[in-house]
């Protein structure tokens, strides 16, 4: 389906454009399931995912980052808004308006990787079946032999031994299983991969392997990633741009280095400050410890949803919801923040950089 007029243009470089995306869940009560409220899981989210980049969605539990990714792939139908998707020079299509059959075609190009490779892989299927299944469903498998060849190629791509394709997931460790999940996601040669907390359940040594593998695959295959995560250090390593979400809204978005060194929203500043750093020298640094907890998206405070925890909050913050506006990054990069005082506050980002670790041989 092509885009009806007035939905908004896609940026030149964008492969996916999210426009005014809204997802509300009703709160129902009693036998008659009377609606008594609404959980604003995603509330007017806008961003562009540019071809070949890694954009991270970060935030704490309940901020709407996973719901946003589900609404992009239409695993959950959004309440309102548009998700524009463009392949090459073709006319953009609006995924939210598509019927099932059309969606199936579009989903060839947008694949997902999930957090827990113990539940995302069917234990009764062999690697050949798991990785080959999307090819069969989309009738891209060809002969049995061609399917085996393609699966072998995918296994080599994720650095697994192709001779293991007749084994079951239980024979593999967590890191290896995540490689299997990646191979499955790549089986249809997609353009976009949505990785939802794809490395969060892994041990650090294995997490590093998967992070590097994802980067290599991106360079090799020209993939575009939407990287949903809560770990700021991981996001710093993996993403080109970062969107910080709080209570269903994007509160800040910009280039990774710019956003980390020069945050413009107090929530971003607090998140960066709270992230524990594996360096004992920073033990006694002054840390911003936010009071209270993440706002309840079913019962949002008036004005800026962050104001009850914000140490810079003033009267205006309690009344007016701030817009996500351009605050101007370095060298003309786009850097947007949703804070009334974004241009006045002097916020602290990451700094310094500890000295090199001495490796002494005894």
């Amino acid at each position: 389906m092509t885009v009806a007029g007035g939905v908004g243009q896609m940026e030149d470089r964008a492969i996916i454009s999210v426009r005014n995306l809204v997802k509300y869940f009703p709160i129902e009560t009693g036998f008659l399931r009377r609606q008594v409220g609404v959980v604003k899981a995603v509330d007017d989210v806008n961003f562009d995912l540019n071809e070949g980049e890694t954009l991270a969605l970060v935030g704490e539990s309940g901020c709407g980052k996973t719901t946003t990714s589900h609404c992009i792939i239409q695993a959950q139908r959004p309440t309102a808004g548009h998700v524009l998707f463009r392949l090459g020079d073709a006319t953009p299509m609006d995924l939210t308006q598509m019927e099932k059959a059309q969606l199936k075609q579009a989903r060839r190009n947008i694949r997902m990787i999930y957090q827990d490779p113990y539940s995302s892989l069917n234990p009764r299927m062999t690697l050949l079946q798991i990785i080959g299944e999307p090819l069969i469903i989309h009738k891209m498998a060809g002969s049995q032999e061609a399917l085996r060849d393609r699966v072998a190629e995918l296994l080599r791509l994720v650095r697994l031994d192709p001779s293991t394709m007749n084994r079951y997931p239980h024979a593999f460790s967590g890191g290896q299983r995540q490689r299997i999940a990646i191979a499955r996601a790549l089986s249809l040669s997609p353009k976009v991969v949505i990785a939802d907390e794809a490395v969060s359940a892994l041990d650090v040594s294995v997490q590093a392997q998967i992070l590097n593998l994802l980067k290599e695959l991106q360079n090799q295959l020209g993939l575009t990633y939407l990287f949903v995560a809560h770990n700021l250090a991981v996001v710093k390593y993996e993403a080109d741009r970062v969107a910080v979400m709080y209570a269903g809204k994007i509160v800040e978005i910009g280039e990774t280095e710019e956003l980390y060194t020069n945050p413009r929203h107090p929530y971003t500043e607090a998140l960066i400050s709270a992230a524990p750093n594996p360096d004992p020298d920073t033990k006694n640094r002054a840390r911003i410890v936010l009071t209270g907890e993440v706002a309840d998206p079913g019962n949002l405070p008036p004005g800026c949803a962050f104001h009850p925890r914000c140490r810079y909050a003033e009267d205006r913050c309690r009344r007016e919801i701030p817009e996500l506006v351009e605050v101007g990054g370095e060298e003309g990069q786009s850097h947007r923040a949703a804070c009334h005082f974004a241009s006045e506050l002097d916020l602290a980002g990451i700094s310094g950089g500890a000295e090199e670790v001495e490796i002494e041989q005894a």
Partner: protein
Amino acid sequence: MTAQQAGEREATSVPGRNAGVDSLLSVRNLQTHFFSREGVVKAVDGVSFDIKPGEILGIAGESGCGKSVTSQSILRILPRNGKIVGGEILFNNGDRTVDLATEEADGRVLRDIRGKEIAMIFQEPMTSFSPVHTIGDQIIETIRIHQDVSKEEAREQAVEMLRRVGMPNPARNIEEYTFNLSGGMRQRAMVALSLSCRPKLLIADEPTTAVDVTIQAQMLELLRDIQADLGMAIIMITHDLGVIAELTDRVMIMYLGKEVEHGTVEDVFHRPQHPYTRGLLASIPKMEPGRVEIEPIEGVVPNPYAMPTGCKFHTRCPEYIAGVCEKRDPPLTAVRPGHEVSCYLYGGREELE
């Protein structure tokens, strides 16, 4: 066991031995194994460490390294198929030293120590609480089991402890059930419960793993403040080296049931010696400006039923010495006072020849 027998045990427990010089807890060559149809898993295989009163010790490592089993062994709350097959856990309980490894797991000595002298907090606060009793009732019960006080006094102590852990309205919170509390408040209530008898040692097993980063920061601040306030020793068990660096004085790094390195956090983080410790630190993405590459440790953690011989890390080690590392466990070698490493790069090869 009758009370009288228990009394005799107490009186004769660990004669003539001390829990290290001025140590609160001395774990010596602890071996805890799990027995199942598939075979034996040596979850903890010869671990030793000391903790002094008021000290914060970190135990860090990846899944399957034995860090949680070590803490379960100390409190004797192992799953049924887990057994302590060797070693000592010497706890300096005021006037006498008790070997927790040889006491009855549900005998009087351990029941007196567990919850009173040594308390524990877990990853999921709901596992510490009953959902059908108010948090106040549960804290008061814990206090009255271990101390001879009236209900009113116990209640006052409970309110006071809830206040100390930063509950917003202790007098009201004491009447609440856990399901009424938010995640962060549950964590605080759990800390209050564990500290209600003023333990000498608090074991925290991944207490911040399931919570968001802003709540984690609150939790770490709370543990730091309350430690300064009450002065108990803390064993912090976590896979997160960032948490270790922020909270602890000393750290022990474990891999597959073995201790690979221990020392002050400054020594271990700034001058890591064991190839595994270096690998771990190199694999963590850093919160620093500019591009900082990470280097993963190659390979996968071996199957616990088919553990490598010799140094458990030799199959993944970039500095593997053929003909040495696979032969026998490397001994712990001091590279400087208080900083020990078990790796043949630093000594122990002579004994092989």
